[in-house]
């Protein structure tokens, strides 16, 4: 049994080891990488990505996939900004209501996404891809292409106010990470994601309302996308149709790099945290060590492959598509 346990332990901690190795590597290449200020910078760039990645983690645990995050993030960001400005433009006024409103909008878009997937019986890849187009399109319709600036100092405190060297948005992200962890381990819904991902037909036969779990999963993901949208707006002070761009591939890559399997049932939000950090450490580290811009995409690709290879429990896999 001894050897089995060691292997299990290794598999469990492999993604973290990969992260540590990467950090040590970049620190060795450029000592300035290894500083609290830089970690805060990595934290800032990771925070919105982490929220989006956590959202999609739930979907991936169910064995589905969600490609709609770019649209959802844009819609939430834009609606938030409009509402925020309209209701006073500062957190000190009733404009704070725009925060829960954004989460509600995220939930609604996610719900719609889930309904299209489940009720029209369209595989989630296709349904969410198309819904992503609809989301981005809707955000564009709302803004007409304009950018909305959110200048309120209180709200921008997410970025500018620091506790222990880290801006508030990092703490917000951690708080929502803990909420996601709670949902994952301590609620029926969270556990049911694993049941659906581990064997959907079996879960159904056990009397689980799989369709409901799926729809709720997409709704929950929508809420986390909305949090991601808020942090993204907090980071650059602008809400626009393009707020959501680039989230899709980055978040899914992060989830997989963290060790959550695309075929479902394995992994969780802590894996996603590690995955997001790995991707952002690589991105930050490449610039910090002065790698020329044109090779960065290639290096990122190679490192991602290496990270997935190292952090996946490959013994549990018979074949991969």
């Amino acid at each position, binding site marked *: 049994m001894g050897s089995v346990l060691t292997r299990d332990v290794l598999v469990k901690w492999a993604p973290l080891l990969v992260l540590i190795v990467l950090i040590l590597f970049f620190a060795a290449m*450029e000592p*300035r*990488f290894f*500083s609290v*200020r*830089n970690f805060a*910078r*990595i934290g*800032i*760039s990771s925070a919105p990505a982490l929220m989006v990645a956590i959202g999609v983690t739930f979907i991936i645990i169910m064995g589905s996939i969600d490609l709609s995050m770019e649209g959802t993030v844009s819609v939430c960001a834009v609606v938030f900004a409009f509402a925020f400005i309209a209701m006073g433009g500062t957190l000190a006024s009733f404009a704070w209501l725009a925060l829960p409103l954004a989460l509600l909008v995220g939930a609604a878009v996610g719900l719609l996404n889930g309904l299209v997937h489940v009720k029209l019986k369209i595989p989630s890849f296709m349904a969410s891809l198309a819904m992503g187009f609809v989301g981005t399109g809707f955000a*564009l319709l709302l*803004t*007409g*292409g*304009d*950018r909305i*600036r959110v200048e309120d100092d209180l709200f*921008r405190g997410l*970025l*500018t106010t620091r506790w222990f060297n880290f*801006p508030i948005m990092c703490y917000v992200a951690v708080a929502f990470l803990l909420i996601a962890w709670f949902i994952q381990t301590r609620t029926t819904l969270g556990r049911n994601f694993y049941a659906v991902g581990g064997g959907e037909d079996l879960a159904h036969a056990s009397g689980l309302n799989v369709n409901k779990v799926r729809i709720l999963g997409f709704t929950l993901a929508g809420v986390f996308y909305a949090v991601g949208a808020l942090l*993204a707006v907090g*980071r*650059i*002070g*602008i809400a*626009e*149709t*393009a*707020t959501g*761009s*680039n989230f899709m591939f980055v978040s899914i890559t992060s989830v997989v790099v963290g060790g959550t399997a695309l075929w479902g049932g394995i992994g969780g939000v802590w894996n996603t945290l590690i995955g997001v950090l790995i991707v952002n450490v690589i*991105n*930050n580290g*490449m*610039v*910090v*060590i*002065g790698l020329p*811009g*044109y090779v960065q995409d290639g290096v990122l690709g190679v490192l991602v492959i290496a990270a997935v290879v190292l952090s996946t429990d490959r013994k549990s896999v018979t074949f991969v598509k």
Partner: protein
Amino acid sequence: MSFIKKFIEQETVNRRNFLLASAYGLGGVAAAGVFGPGMAQAASNPTVAWSYRNRTNPYWNEIVSGGEAFMDAAGLGKDALTHLINEGSSEKSLADVKALLAKTSGNLALAIDTNDAPNCRPVVEAVAEAGGYVSTIWNKTDDLHPWDFGDNYVSHMTWSDEGPAEQTARILLEAMGGKGGVVHLGGIASNNPAIERLNGLKNALKDYPDVELLAAEPADWDTQKANQVMSAFLTRYGDEITGVHCANDTIAYGVLEALRAEGIDDMPIVSYDGNPQAVGLVDEGKILATVFTNPHWGGGITAALAYHAAIGTFKPSDEPNEHREFYGPTILITPKDAAEFKANYLDNVPTYDWTDFWGPTNGQIMYK
């Protein structure tokens, strides 16, 4: 029920077109109409279209507003402007143009940025073949010239970015006191303006031997990417960075926020494009300079050139080469003149004379 009304109107028009086509068919000319190049266009009612990258960028929104202003001024109504959005895809750009040519049977006045330089040739060729009129901005390969296409390729306008970018760079370098380190955040690496704007900085640096160009990274014209790249620069170079040269305004926003996160609010920054928001920042002194390329005018005049050529107001082939290929206007904006500029150009958009095609332009395009 405007949809139904429109539908009926269209049907009537279509039927007429269809009948016309059949009539030509009887005369044996249809083959030319259907398969061959288009016939000489009647100079009436061309469809006016603008083809551009997307609506999520303030620059293109300004372009569109200019196009619409022209449509209103010409009495066509801004709703009559057809929008072709390529979403950054040359393939879609070309396919959309061809579809529109087919729909309008070549009776088209097209203003376009072809997204990637190589895409310009097939677009122009397609328009010329169908007998439409096209004016292009920004992307064009150097071997392609309007005068090689008779009247159909009306004009090409671009902006010489190297000079103005050098001017902003000088302002930046002066503000840095002629010493220290500067970083450049560029556009999509292979885009022509991105290359020119970096060159502008490099040209200026020759006169400032004490300033080091620490790094130049592409930020893809993207605020979020710029934000991340700037953060990483801060780690790598820290206090060595005493100035930031941005390839455009959207990049500058990301840079400003990255600095703001670090509590740095006195870093000298210059940018490009002269978006209203950036002009505001120049006014506040947060950006030292930006360059206004007047996209509103550019959007209007490019459509105007194509339209007036199409309806025969002027004959492009009679015009000299400097009226076919020319640089667009650039206005340097610094904190001194920002307020005035804002009042003149942004708060009240000037009413332009859309038939003064070449007044504000900056001379014929020179190839190196």
